[in-house]
């Protein structure tokens, strides 16, 4: 087996006496597409925030390529949120060039001349892949929700991150648009050899897109003190083409007001 990109070693997250995540022990192989599902409050978002660096483990270690993860967001971890992922004051092209500006211009914060032209070319190529060639000069507010998410994905890929984190990226989109986005993200995953971790509420989406599905929930439940037990990955499915269907044991997993559809 190749060395994992991302490893969790006995990771706990606690707020005061409330335990959110307990004993998370995971390895993510390079090139994996990991879907993360689970009921609300099961620590999916906390898990993702650990990787983005918005959260630090109370105990345990998170390793990126074997090295301890930097405790703040960085360019090796690209991220797409459900909303507010793009900069409203920048045009489509500038939203994508921003990452290259940051990399190449520490003082002015923007590239000029030949470097700028090279960066724009690179951004245009990426925007062409997500189908935004005709909206380069538009502002995000002029784009539909699906186009904004396409932009957010292109923006996240420009720095060639080791892993791409998706936090319910398609949750706010219409069903039809969502199907288009599924095709897009699958293509990008294959073409760029990305390692993706995606949190989703949509269990069908999780099994359709991922090649591995993690289900977060509490392993134990204390009715007297429910906050004293944290969640962890209670199911870990490796998917092949034959096992794409949602397995039986998963159907009962989202009981608290969550629907699988």
């Amino acid at each position, binding site marked *: 087996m190749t060395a994992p990109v991302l490893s969790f070693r006995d990771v706990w997250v606690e707020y005061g006496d409330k335990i959110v995540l307990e004993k998370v022990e995971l390895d993510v192989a390079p090139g994996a597409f990991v879907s993360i599902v689970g009921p609300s409050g099961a620590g999916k978002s906390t898990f993702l925030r650990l990787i*983005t*660096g*918005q959260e630090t483990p109370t105990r345990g270690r998170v390793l990126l390529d074997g090295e301890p993860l930097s405790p*703040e*967001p*960085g*360019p090796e*971890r*690209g*991220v797409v*949120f459900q*909303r*507010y*992922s*793009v*900069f*409203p*004051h*920048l045009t489509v092209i500038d939203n994508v060039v*921003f*990452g290259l*500006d*940051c*990399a190449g*211009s*520490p*003082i002015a*914060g*923007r590239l000029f001349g030949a470097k700028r032209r090279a960066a724009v070319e690179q951004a245009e190529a990426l925007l062409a892949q997500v189908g935004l060639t005709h909206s380069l000069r538009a*502002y*995000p*507010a002029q784009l539909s929700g699906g186009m904004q998410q396409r932009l*957010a994905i292109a*923006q*996240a890929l*420009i*720095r060639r*991150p080791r892993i791409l984190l998706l936090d319910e990226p398609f949750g706010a989109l219409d069903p039809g648009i969502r199907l288009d986005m599924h095709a897009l993200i699958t293509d990008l995953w294959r073409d760029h050899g990305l390692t993706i971790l995606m949190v989703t509420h949509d269990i069908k989406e999780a099994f359709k897109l991922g090649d591995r599905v993690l289900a977060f929930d509490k392993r134990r439940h204390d009715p007297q003190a429910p906050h004293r037990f944290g969640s962890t990955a209670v199911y870990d499915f490796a998917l092949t083409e034959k096992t794409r269907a949602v397995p039986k044991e998963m159907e009962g997993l989202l009981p608290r007001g969550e629907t699988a559809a």
Partner: protein
Amino acid sequence: MRRLLNVRPSRGGRFFLGFFPLAAVAVFYVVASGARHAANNSDKLLPTPGAIWAAIERMAFTVDPLKGAIPLVVDTAASMERLLLGMGIATAATLIIGLVIGLLPLVRAGLGPLVAAIAVVPPIALLPILFIAMGLGEASKIALIVVGIAPFMIRDLASHVAAIPEEQMVKAQSLGGSTWQIALRVALPQAMPRLLKCFRLSLGPAWVFLISAEAIASDVGLGYRIFLVRRYLAMDVIIPYVIWIALLAVAMDLIVLWISKRFFPWAHSARES
């Protein structure tokens, strides 16, 4: 029948609806003034349009032989210089301090309480301190405007910057942005239209502080003039001066709005323009 709250005026209708109250006030004034002059021809409280026009000619188009200048011009120049200097200093301070307070939790913890404390002091109460510390010259008048509006502007801008969604900040960092790059490329441009809006909202209070300072200690300026001629009940001068001040305020407001729309089109929705 449509609900009243859904009835919107057309373009022409809006113009008429806006014009009508203004015209009504003018007509009411002319009628009231005529009535008072019918009773007492030397009435000073509501001068006739003719008397007002004579005062305008005297103040705005005639060189005052004692001073060798047109009174309205020197008053306007002096007042505008104070107002623009005061607002300029307040705006520049707001941009730097407000941005830093909004962006950096460390600075917010340090400066936030100070700004909040200054903001609750009525600025006019500080005027004696300013007069004592800075003398009765231009500096204390400009300082009053700055002290009067800057705390409000700083707090507003800081809360606006602090309210930039966390997702955007994480995204910027995940694209490799440093604190400086994010301040420059993410926070500053998003703060600018808000700063201009703050500027427009602060124009009203700034005029209040300017006129107050000029009324108390000055020898030139729009506020000085109207408080000077008040002693002679010279309503024929006061009324055009007040209208002139209103026109200046509206013009400044529209200019700043134009700047905001011109340079920050993304901050103005299509419906607004």
